[in-house]
């Protein structure tokens, strides 16, 4: 067992599960989507990205790319949220909520790809 691999997989999967936790619920109901969950998903996703830095293998580059996509989507979701609350001051209307959740859904897809790649790499790894 390789501790580095454990930590790496841990963060990748945690990013996916937290992301999923935020995403699940009615798409336009703000009651179903907690800001803390989005925060946790974003932080874990950022850490997962950094763990993928400096890997020269081809699959490593692919993992980094999917991770960056997830970060970008989650940051966009958080920014839309902050913008509606403090700049436009319209509050979380159903349309805004659904756009935040759909952005996080995009991140979910990226995180899913990331985990799938991880699984593929593990399966093809031969001793």
């Amino acid at each position, binding site marked *: 067992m390789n501790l580095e691999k454990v930590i790496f997989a841990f963060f990748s999967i945690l990013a996916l599960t937290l992301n999923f936790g935020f995403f699940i619920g009615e798409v336009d109901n703000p009651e179903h989507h907690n*800001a803390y969950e989005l*925060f946790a998903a974003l*932080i874990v996703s*950022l*850490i997962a990205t*950094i763990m993928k*830095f*400096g890997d020269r293998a081809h699959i490593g580059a692919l993992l980094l790319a999917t991770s960056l996509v997830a970060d970008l989507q989650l940051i966009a979701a958080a920014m839309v949220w*902050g913008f509606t609350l403090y700049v436009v001051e319209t509050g979380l209307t159903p349309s805004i909520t659904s756009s935040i959740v759909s952005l996080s859904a995009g991140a979910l897809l990226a995180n899913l790809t990331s985990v799938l790649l991880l699984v593929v790499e593990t399966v093809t790894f031969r001793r």
Partner: protein
Amino acid sequence: MKKVIYLLLRRMRLPLIVLISVYAISILGMTLITGVDEQGNPWRMDFFHAIYFVSFLGSTIGLGEVPYAFTDAQRMWTTFVIYAAVVSWLYAIGSILTLIQDQAFRRVLDFTSFARKVRRSQDPFYIICGYGDAARQLVRELSEHFIHSVVIDRDREKILDLQVEDLPFHVPGLSEDATDSDGLLAAGLKHPCCRGVIALSGDDDVNLAVAITSKLLAPELPVICQSDSRDAAANMASFGTDHIIDPFDIFASHLAMMFHSPRLHLVYEWITAVHDAPLSEFKSPPAGTWVLCGFGRFGKAVQEYITGEGVQTRLIEADTGATGAPLDAIEGRGTEANTLVEAGIKNATGIIAGTDSDTNNLSILITARDLNPGLFTVVRQNHQNKDQIFRAADIDIIMQPGAITAQHILSLILAPLLGDFLNLASDQGEEWANVLVSRVAGVVEDITPETWDLDISPLAAPAVFDCLIRGDKIRLHDLCVHPQNRAEQLPCVPLLIKRDNEKLLLPGMEVQLHAGDHILFCGREEAMRQARHTINDHQALYYIRTGIDRPSGALWRWLTND
């Protein structure tokens, strides 16, 4: 560059994770602790304000308590955040600084910037492996002749030396093992402008490895190697090393030449001497018995050659067993009077101090001179940094392996015909050499002549080539007069014309040139410049041939053409 980025990212993993974690925990804490707003109602900071507050707190230690004055619980958390943020920033910045100073990182950085410089190079260049005395002189001389070079040496100090050297243009240097093919490739082994590889590392194994790598990866490139032993030389020759240079052998053959034809040697010395050196004087070593101190590679080569000239030698060697010295050799260093006397210094005509220690060589010289002031002295100088002392010692011939190697390689590069010329010249008599000496001395003043090659080819001499193709006749004389005043002779002497299988030694001025001729000249630098102008300029050549200064513009040509 890719490698550098990967290294940087890899090393920055932990500091970045620490930084993000500290910020995340701080922001989370800020949003969880209950505060009080202006009206005294309980209030919780939201994510937006928490990120804003922690961001300026982490980088500047605060602008104030926003949006409302903090409670004590919030202040306690803020205190924690201040320390945590400062420590994590220090850690992150510290790791970047450590990384920049890291040897491995610097090497990657140096390697990358060296490879980039070489890759962008547009001028023809030579790769020089090893930067000792010989390489230093060679790089300097090449740059005086506007030829670029790149240097690889294992020793970082030497590359630093190269960087502070005052050269007319930048010579990239890399501290890397030259036996490593990556280093050679980065130095431009496969670059279209690379003209050759020169191995001067002072270590036969390294030179051998360089030669093998070059011949395998770039078979068409000429390879010039210095070799210290015959075994290594034979090995290098076996896989097609183009030129193998043994400075001791070269020197010994010159010394022999000085015995049988001192004037020819003088010519040789002049035309191979370094740029702008003063003209050396005529020296003729006396025959008779010579005392030879040191029977290493140098001593063996010298003894072999001068014995062939009928010179008797008496040997002095400190370690007669290991060097395989003959039985009549006297054991000792030669620095003491009694060994020298035993070797018969009082009746000898010359002394050769050829050990590998400069101090001992000077000591031998001084002791020997005390015993017999009339001696002809030959001293080996191993290190260039002792120039001053050796020059002050008033020695007849100073043998510097570095200088000999550098000169030899330089003439191979600048005037490849020189070898042919010298081979032919060595068959000529002393009188022929005497005539040549006076002709060369007539054109150069008191500094050594330049030697240059001229090819009558469409690229190198377009004007001459076009004329010859049209069927006009061009004499050698036309290349040796001033392109602005054809009555004025240029200060140069044509030494050799090589065409197909024919070689014309000291060709007369009336010789007709053919397309494809290679001509070797020696003379003053300005003659080289003027002759290069003539061969490239149709107008100048037309004027020289006919004496008519033809107008060059179409309009003028039409106006004058009645």
